[in-house]
């Protein structure tokens, strides 16, 4: 292509106030074409508000946003023509069949009957909806509903698709299949903006951002976030401690000097410890309290570790600012 394509989304200092409450506070990020962008954060932290601002539903209280090179404030209609959106409850009409749901969304986007037919064939093939065309969407299982909803959202060949918690309440197999599909589509150049609560899904994104009570506190590739100095301060490393009686072990491990932070992950403990703390010393201290440690091994931080660290840091900054 001759001219450089604009990024899929550019958000600059987005602000949204509801009365005295600032729900979104100076959020900036950039999503390149073809990326799978994971947008994470606790409930009520402003994820949905950001989506509503980017789709032109909520006016911005401040800042600027452009989607597919279009100014959201000036041209929300054209933005909505060119994006797809799938909400977490899949927003299908339960008393309409698969074909009727697709036809409805096709007409909404003003697709001509002829093109609609070829697009529907394509989508049905891609999503494997073939056997269910005349079934009411209320009779589909969660995974198939989600595929149909995704089909409805991409019927008009949008270049950017917003998925608001696409895998909430879906079985693991359907979840994996959805992600396979997303990768396939993103290879074709479609950009995805995905919100999720699942950390394993976040790990699959090629770009993640974390919003915490209206402020963006992380933005980058999963690997670059793992190497942030806040996550991995100089002179420290992470270990996984596998032991029986993990809850007691956690209590004791936290009292050992040199252990900065420790949390339980299933049957083991993830700990951030100083370089000068010898793992053998830690093992001995635990044994003194009758806790047998099976293994202590170095560990790369998970994205969950990253977000926990960044949240702690953010909270301590807020507290420091108050004091």
């Amino acid at each position, binding site marked *: 292509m001759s001219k450089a394509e604009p990024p899929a989304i550019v958000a600059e200092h987005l602000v949204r106030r509801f009365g005295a409450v600032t729900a979104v506070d100076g959020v900036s990020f950039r999503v390149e074409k073809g990326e799978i962008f994971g947008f994470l954060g606790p409930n009520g932290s402003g994820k949905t508000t950001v989506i509503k601002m980017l*789709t032109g*539903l*909520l006016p911005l209280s401040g800042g600027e946003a452009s989607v597919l090179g279009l100014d959201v404030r000036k041209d929300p*209609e054209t933005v*909505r*023509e060119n*994006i797809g*959106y799938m*909400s*977490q*409850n899949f*927003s*299908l*009409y*339960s*008393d*309409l069949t698969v074909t*009727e749901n697709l*036809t*409805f*969304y*096709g*007409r*909404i*986007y*003003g697709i001509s009957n002829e093109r609609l037919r070829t697009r529907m064939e394509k989508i049905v093939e891609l999503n494997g909806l073939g056997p269910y065309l005349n079934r009411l969407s209320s009779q589909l299982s969660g995974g198939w509903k989600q595929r149909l909803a995704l089909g409805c959202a991409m019927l008009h060949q949008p270049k950017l698709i*917003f998925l608001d918690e696409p895998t909430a309440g879906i079985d693991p197999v359907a979840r994996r299949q959805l992600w396979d599909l997303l990768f396939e589509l993103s290879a074709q150049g479609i950009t995805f903006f995905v919100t999720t609560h699942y950390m394993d899904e976040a790990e699959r994104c090629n770009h993640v951002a974390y919003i915490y009570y209206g402020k963006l506190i992380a933005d980058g590739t999963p690997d670059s976030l793992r190497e942030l100095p806040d996550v991995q301060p100089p002179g420290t490393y992470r270990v996984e401690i596998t032991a029986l009686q993990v809850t007691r072990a956690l209590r004791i491990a936290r009292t050992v000097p040199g252990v900065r932070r420790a949390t339980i992950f299933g049957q083991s403990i993830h700990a951030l410890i100083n370089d000068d703390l010898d793992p053998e010393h830690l093992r001995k201290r635990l044994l003194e309290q009758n806790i047998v440690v099976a293994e202590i091994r170095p560990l790369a931080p998970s994205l969950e570790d990253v977000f926990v660290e960044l949240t702690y840091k953010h909270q301590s900054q807020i507290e420091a600012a108050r004091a």
Partner: protein
Amino acid sequence: MLNPFRGFNAVFYKEALHVRRDFGTLFFSLIIPLLQMFLLGFAIDTNIRQISTAVYNADGHRESRELLDRLRNSDTFRVARFVENDRDLTDAIVSGKCRVGIKIPVDYSDRLLHQMSAQVLVLIDGSDSSVAGQAINVTTSIGLDESLRRVLANSNRSFAVDMRPKILFNPDSRSPNFFLPGLTAILLLNVTTFLTAFSVVREKERGTLEQLFVTPVRPLGLLLGKLLPYFIIGFVELLMILTLMRFVFQVPIHGSVLLLAILSLPYIFVSLSLGILISSKANSQAEAMQLAFLTILPSIFFSGYIFPRETMPRFFFILSYFVPATYFIDITRGIILRGAGWQHLWIDAVALSCIGSFLLVVAARRFHNKVIMA
């Protein structure tokens, strides 16, 4: 480039599918009003006839029997029992077995023969004011009539003033003629308001409304696409009600049916707007149901459907001007009973259009602020 009706076709297509798929709901929403119509049309009679009456005839002569015959022939009284003393007469009323007790004294015929005034005691149960009123009117007028005939019988003079009342438009005072045109307004309001409110609230419950806002559908396209199917249903309902009224209940339509159909359009518009307004407030179908019922009560009581507006206290009389059914009842009774034309009724159509537009604007604003922005 921007088409303000964008999405109208798609929404209409979908809404029509909902209606077809959910045929049961549609069927009942159309049939139940017709059943109500049958019940009210056959069961309610505002004319008071055949009041059960107890008689204590202490006299028993020919004059007293003639008086009783005249009371019977008025069609207002039905002699349910004869009693033999004052105590039984009172008891018949207290026990609720009779509404009226008539005592003809022992000297009734003697006094008449001697050209003296004869008194007849009429006891009336006042617990139902319309029955009591009717009993008073009929007994006093029979008394007056009887007296005059006796006075005039001895001279050659005729009645000085002869009142000849003539009831226009509903000469037999048939109750269906009075009730059914008004009922049309109430039923139409029910059906259309409920259906629209439900259709929007259902989309809220499912979350599909939220989805629609993120598509290029324009608000006007969405609204009209949703309303049009129910507009058609409301109109069909009106035609069904009119057909039943005309051919089953034999209510003659004196005016133009076409005019009635045209003037019903602004009223259906009001009902639909009301439905949209309800749906902007309600988040569940149960909530919508409660709010819709709230709109029905004023339509029944303050519209003149049952109680005449003219006798209402001033506050409620003014209130009745804000009830859409008031105007449509004026239209239906005007056209059906009095044969009124456009020149008499245009003001009602204007009022309805104003109320409808106002409601729609309020509903649209509420939608924008409470549903999209929330």
